[in-house]
């Protein structure tokens, strides 16, 4: 744990939908948001007006990381975006943070009307070494037969705190593709909750992360199958080194009536150092018999055979390790609609593995 984690006023969030043994410390997670003032965020301007009614509907569905964090998000909000997607070019928003902008509390609403499709990229990063905080909520409403790609990239510095809550709703025949990349922030808390309400709704999630130093990552997913014949998958791939701690907690919830649904979750962790800690809690909750749910979690060192093959081709050990880790993240990176950023991220992963 980093020093910044030691605090007295304890705030907790990301509570599991079905609790288990308390001593394992996986039922919820500590939230490290220290700033309670409202400070303006000056790097970008808000887009559109937040639909309060829509906001309320979504808050009734789920409280994101926690009720308290949601309340802070409403009170301290310094950036509010509302997009109504209409077959447009990808929307790309850069959200830099620095000593000038130490706090970003953003509310985002992405509404995709019927039959439309689009892409939204939110890229949050540090410009300097100062400690910054982010508390973000993203509401995604995918209406009938629509499709949206939402891509989140987070590259804050090691002293920083990132809290992101996503609440989504997917209609009849609609599809939500979410890709998230977590490469920064010493303290990352991620929350994703989706209600697949429509007939044949789909939710596809790909996450790539790299934990190093004293990083603490909490990745929380809650996928609810409500409509008939919904399809979902969660794919989380990442690597841990130094003293990084990762908690993956994914739940696929088959609500009664979601007949014919199919849900999959897969978590794969590459362990690069002896001192890392990897925790996985892959839940399947089934209230319906006519469904198929699968989960697989695995963790281990880099496969010797792969390493041997690459090294026999003349690559150094570190170089080979870098390539292998990078390749596990490629499917997620491929979702990013910005080639330069994609390349940047690949390079960062590669060089962080090689430099270790």
């Amino acid at each position: 744990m980093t020093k910044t984690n030691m605090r007295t006023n304890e705030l907790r969030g990301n509570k599991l939908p079905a609790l288990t043994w308390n001593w394992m410390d996986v039922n919820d997670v500590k939230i490290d948001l220290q700033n309670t003032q409202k400070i303006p965020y000056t790097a970008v301007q808000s887009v559109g007006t937040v639909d309060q009614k829509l906001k309320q509907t979504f808050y009734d569905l789920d409280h994101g990381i926690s009720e308290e964090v949601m309340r802070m998000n409403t009170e301290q909000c310094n950036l509010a975006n509302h997009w109504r997607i209409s077959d447009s070019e990808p929307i790309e928003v850069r959200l830099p943070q620095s000593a000038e902008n130490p706090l970003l509390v953003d509310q985002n609403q992405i509404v995709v009307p019927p039959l439309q499709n689009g892409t939204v990229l939110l890229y949050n990063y540090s410009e300097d070494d100062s400690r910054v905080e982010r508390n973000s909520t993203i509401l995604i409403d995918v209406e009938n037969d629509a499709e949206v790609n939402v891509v989140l990239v987070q590259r804050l510095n090691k002293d920083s705190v990132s809290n992101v809550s996503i609440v989504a709703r997917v209609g009849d025949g609609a599809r939500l593709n979410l890709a998230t990349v977590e490469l920064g922030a010493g303290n990352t808390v991620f929350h994703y909750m989706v209600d697949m309400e429509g007939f044949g709704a789909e939710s596809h999630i790909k996450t790539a992360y790299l934990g190093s130093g004293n990083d603490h990552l909490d990745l929380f997913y809650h996928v609810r199958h409500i409509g008939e014949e919904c399809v979902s998958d969660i794919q989380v791939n990442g690597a841990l080194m130094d003293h990084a701690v990762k908690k993956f907690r994914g739940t696929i919830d088959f609500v009664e009536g979601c007949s014919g649904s199919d849900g999959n979750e897969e978590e794969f962790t590459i362990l690069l150092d002896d001192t890392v800690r990897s925790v996985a809690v892959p839940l399947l909750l089934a209230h319906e018999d006519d469904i198929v749910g699968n989960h697989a979690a695995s963790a281990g060192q880099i496969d010797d055979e792969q390493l041997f093959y690459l090294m026999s081709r003349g690559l150094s050990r570190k170089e080979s390790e870098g390539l292998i880790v990078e390749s596990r993240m490629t499917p997620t990176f491929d979702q990013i609609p910005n080639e330069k950023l994609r390349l940047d991220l690949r390079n960062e992963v590669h060089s962080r593995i090689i430099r270790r």
Partner: protein
Amino acid sequence: MLNTKPKQNIKQQDRERILAEKAAEREILKEARRKERAEKLKERTYVEEFDRGVYDIKNPNRYEIMLSKGLSEEIVREISSIKNEPDWMLKKRLAALEIYQKMENPNWGPDLSELDMDEIATYIRPKAQMESNWQEVPDEIRKTFELLGIPEAELDYLSGVGAQYDSEVVYHNMKDYLALQGVVYTDFESGVEQYPEIIREYFGTCLKPNLHRYSALHYAVWSGGSFVYVPEGVQVDIPLQSYFRMNAPGAGQFEHTLIIVEKGGSLHFIEGCSAPRYNTINLHAGGVELFVKEGAKLRYSTIENWSRNMYNLNSKRAIVEKNGVIEWISGSFGSRVSMLYPASILIGEGARSEFTGITFAGAGQTLDTGAQVVHKAPHTYSTVETKSISKGGGKAIYRSLVQVEEGAYGCKSNTDCQSLMLDAQSRGDTIPTIILKNDDVDFGHEAKIGRIDDQAIFYLMSRGLSEEEAKAMIVRGFAEPVAKELPLEYAVEMNELINLELKGAIG
């Protein structure tokens, strides 16, 4: 690569038309798929609650001593004095009672609020002395156990048997040649009396009273159970068995089982549990402590068929030393609420743990079962294989922990859990936790939930089987890995149970 679609440029009126068309198509599809699924459901035959047969036989409730209901220091002292216990044991009981009173019910898992300790009698002594001659056991009690097949099993198959009726052991016997080799198999009270040093050294060190509330309760009011000691190098070639039977309504059974298998020894221990059905709540909070020494092997099999009014809050834990092996076989069928997660603590290099379990939850049952493995030493191995089946609104929950500690290098662990749900009212949840604290680990976890794969049925049918045969074959295959690990008479019983419940039930 990039999956941003090009602009579609659909005109507004076209858009509305397309939407309407899509919606109409979907309605047709929805109907068709619903029909298809309903057809599938129709093919199922629903099996009513099965007759528990001999398990439900009630005996008149005759007892010599029944302590008043509830829990207090007086009651704990009374139990201790009835048993003529040494002072250290009483101290342990009182310390545990204190822990119990401080602790709360867990905030996770099944609801335990209906369980009221004030309504439960913690100690009941049946009108019987412990016998080692079967014919001298009181008629009623003997008849019950005979119906359950205990003495026949002893003649044919077992090297020793113990039978506990309510709070006390009523029969204990072991084949002579084992005693000559130094094997000890006795009820726990006699163990405390005859082997005080051993018991004092091991008692409460594996399973600690502060583990959880019902472990504390167990240590405060324990009564009965078994003590087994297998000396160095002795192989007990046929299984030992103990059978727990609860007859009195509104009672608790708190037996303590302590097994020590010394260096290079081996043992197979079988535990069976049953109780007749009453409308009051009964509680079972036993404690099982297993010590597997260097190179030793212990197989611990349990078939639990408590009646559906039982809260089964049992704790089991094994400490395995270098190259030792613990094998758990666990079948959970009965009880109203079960919380049972046998734990294996692998403390010596090369230690191994294998867990095989099956859970069958019917109407009104919440069976929260699973396994825990803690890898504390390098090159330790564990496998967990479980099957859960739920039907008629029953809840089968698989809950587990695999933890690999710092410095436990080269460990391998594999978990495979499958759940089968037979109707939409039931629940099948999977709640595993995996904690890895070093990088040299080979870990895999897989879970599956749901109905039988159509492709598997299709494949078998293409090989000439009828659909029904194909389904039956798949279901048998589902339970097979567990059934084959059970002792014969239990395997037969379990298969019957499963066949009855599963017949044609999967769509």
